[in-house]
């Protein structure tokens, strides 16, 4: 069978699996739809969270980004994992004890106002739509690369599948499909990674191969050799960074605090039965995420080393098969500037080889000479990664609309049946809007996805944290804080990215912090304003203070306190 047929077979088999799960796990109540009935096993929820978390960008692009950024790529590795510590220690258990359906539910009740709830909904929709637009585009691109269909067709197929299980099954359908999607995507990521590690270092464990000697008899370790060859070609050493320490610090912090404030991640911890399960589940989630996140930097270094080794100074005639395969897609290219028939790769203007960062993962199976079914598997994995993240985001958007805007604010008298219907409708509309974003991507999408983290760090994270750990925090403080953080971070990003992109250099930045890291400053501003305003306004009512007492202990809902 050809690779193409195998790919179709694998991807369709995975779709049948997802749709089968969706039919089996239909949502019967709002509780099923919003939080999967609140009865998901912590390990299952850990897998679902990992699939929710790892998008097409993590699966396909991250190793490539690190491959070309070298040490500077560490911000993503630490930033996108460290947030889970904050989530497990500071937020998830308390939000689970609070026992409602959405993140704005907590903000609305803890800050005893519909205003606070609506501000939280605005932050949530802002963050989630920026994020989901990039995902739908990713779905389209994955389809077009592997199945050779138009990006538009790809987006429509993706929408149809997500529509099936998100609208039918809500959180319940999404959770169990995400578990299946995690298994597909991690297997698809690890198989080529293990083989390429064996190929370069003889060590089957990529994380260990990363530090081992290259098996070419030179006695150098992978990183020493990589530093050497890259410097010879005029690049920076792989293990040396180019960003300033303060910028690396701020970007890492913005990504970590942002991760902990992302609604589609937080809401996953509303689905486990108990408070202690929420803590444990965050641990399992990070284990499942860490498997990919510790492999990615290893793959990044192997792929870069292999790229230089096989392409630089070798004749085009003898280029490996994968090079010509991927040349057709435009992801790699060669322009013979000096007409010698030899490919020359360097950092200077005499460079003849162009390489798209995504190739580092996409071409891995071919580089390691793996059979066609592995390539088909990677295709199914890429599709799984993109769909699972898109579905998680669409769910938080639709529950914010049906639950927070309609049920809790505009139409408090609707029945549960009606609310469930609105939830399904909102999910259907959100899928279509996200699909349109994927087909007609606004020019800014690619640039702003990373900023969703900055916005989450600057708006939602402090409001949640202070709501749990600082009892005197009141609605005036929290609302001001959220708005200041959101507006400051948003304006800074828009200014440097769209209004005056020519000024987007270190000397113009505030304290030398790039727009990617500014969410950290936004978060500090949020906290300072929230404290300041709460000192000069009325403390929260006694009832709310009792609520804070109640969520601080894991023991039962009906427990009495002796005051």
């Amino acid at each position, binding site marked *: 069978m050809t690779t193409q047929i195998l790919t179709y077979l694998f991807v369709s088999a995975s779709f049948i699996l997802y749709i089968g799960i969706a039919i089996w796990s239909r949502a019967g109540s709002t509780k099923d739809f919003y939080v999967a009935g609140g009865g998901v096993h912590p390990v299952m929820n850990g897998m679902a969270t990992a699939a929710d978390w790892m998008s097409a960008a993590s699966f396909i692009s991250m190793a490539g980004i690190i491959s070309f950024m070298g040490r500077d790529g*560490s911000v993503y590795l*630490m930033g996108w994992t*460290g947030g889970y*510590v904050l989530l497990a220690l500071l937020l998830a258990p308390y939000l689970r004890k609070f026992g409602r359906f959405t993140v704005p539910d907590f903000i609305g009740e803890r800050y005893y106002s519909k205003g606070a709830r609506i501000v939280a909904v605005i932050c949530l929709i802002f963050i989630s739509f920026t994020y989901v637009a990039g995902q739908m585009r990713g779905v389209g691109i994955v389809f077009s690369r592997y199945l050779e269909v138009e990006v538009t067709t790809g987006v429509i197929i993706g929408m149809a599948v997500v529509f099936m299980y998100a609208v039918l099954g809500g959180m319940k359908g999404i959770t169990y499909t995400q578990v299946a999607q995690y298994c597909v995507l991690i297997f698809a990521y690890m198989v080529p990674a293990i083989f390429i590690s064996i190929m370069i270092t003889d060590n089957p464990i990529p994380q260990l191969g990363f530090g081992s000697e290259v098996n070419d008899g030179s006695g150098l370790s992978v*990183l020493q050799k990589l530093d050497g060859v890259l410097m010879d070609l005029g690049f920076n050493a792989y293990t040396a960074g180019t960003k300033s320490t303060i910028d690396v610090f701020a970007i890492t912090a913005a990504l970590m605090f942002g991760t902990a404030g992302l609604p589609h991640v937080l809401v996953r911890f509303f689905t486990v039965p108990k408070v202690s399960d929420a*803590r444990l589940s965050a641990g399992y989630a990070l284990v499942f995420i860490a498997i990919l996140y510790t492999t990615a930097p290893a793959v990044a270094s192997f792929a870069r080393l292999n790229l230089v080794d096989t392409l630089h100074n070798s004749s085009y005639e003898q280029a490996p098969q994968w090079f010509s395969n991927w040349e057709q897609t435009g992801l790699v290219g060669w322009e013979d500037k000096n007409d010698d028939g030899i490919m020359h790769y360097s950092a200077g203007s005499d460079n003849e080889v162009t390489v798209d960062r995504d190739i580092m993962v996409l071409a891995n199976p071919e580089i390691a000479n793996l059979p066609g079914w592995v390539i088909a598997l990677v295709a199914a994995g890429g599709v799984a990664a993109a769909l699972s993240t898109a579905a998680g985001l669409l769910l938080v958007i639709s529950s914010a609309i049906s639950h927070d805007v309609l049920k809790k604010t505009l139409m408090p008298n609707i029945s549960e049946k009606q609310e469930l219907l609105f939830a399904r409708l909102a999910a259907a509309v959100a899928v279509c809007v996200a699909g349109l974003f994927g087909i007609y991507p606004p020019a800014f999408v690619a640039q702003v996805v990373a900023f969703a983290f900055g916005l989450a760090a600057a708006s939602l994270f402090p409001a949640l944290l202070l709501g749990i750990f600082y009892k005197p925090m009141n609605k005036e403080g929290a609302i001001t804080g959220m708005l200041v953080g959101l507006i400051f971070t948003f304006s800074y990003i828009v200014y440097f990215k769209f209004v005056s992109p020519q000024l987007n250099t270190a000397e113009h930045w505030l304290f030398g912090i790039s727009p990617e890291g500014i969410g950290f400053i936004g978060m500090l501003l949020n906290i300072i304003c929230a404290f300041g305003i709460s000192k000069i306004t009325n403390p929260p009512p006694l009832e709310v203070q009792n*609520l804070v007492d109640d969520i601080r202990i*894991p*023991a039962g809902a009906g427990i009495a306190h002796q*005051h």
Partner: protein
Amino acid sequence: MTEEIYDHQGENLPPATHHDQQTISEENLTTYWQSNLRLLAKLLSVWFLVSFGCGIILADWLDQFSLFGFKLGFWFAQQGAIYAFVALIFIYSWRMKTLEHKFGVDDDEENS
């Protein structure tokens, strides 16, 4: 005004625990919370140290040492910090279970 927004009737509350009929003393609650905060302070210091400390601020200095064939600062930034994060969450989970039993605020279910 507050009444209608704050109904305290959660739709998704955790199940009843064996403490439901009990009254927990204010003193127990306060000491429990303070022990939790102390534990959080310790673990978050480690969190800061392995990532922002060893992976960023001290990374250049640590690079003079080597571990498993890596420069140490580089290893922390691309591998070590992630392993430490995983360990921190499980340590917290385990320590909190102990604390909760000690102060009688655990969420073990009625029949367990």
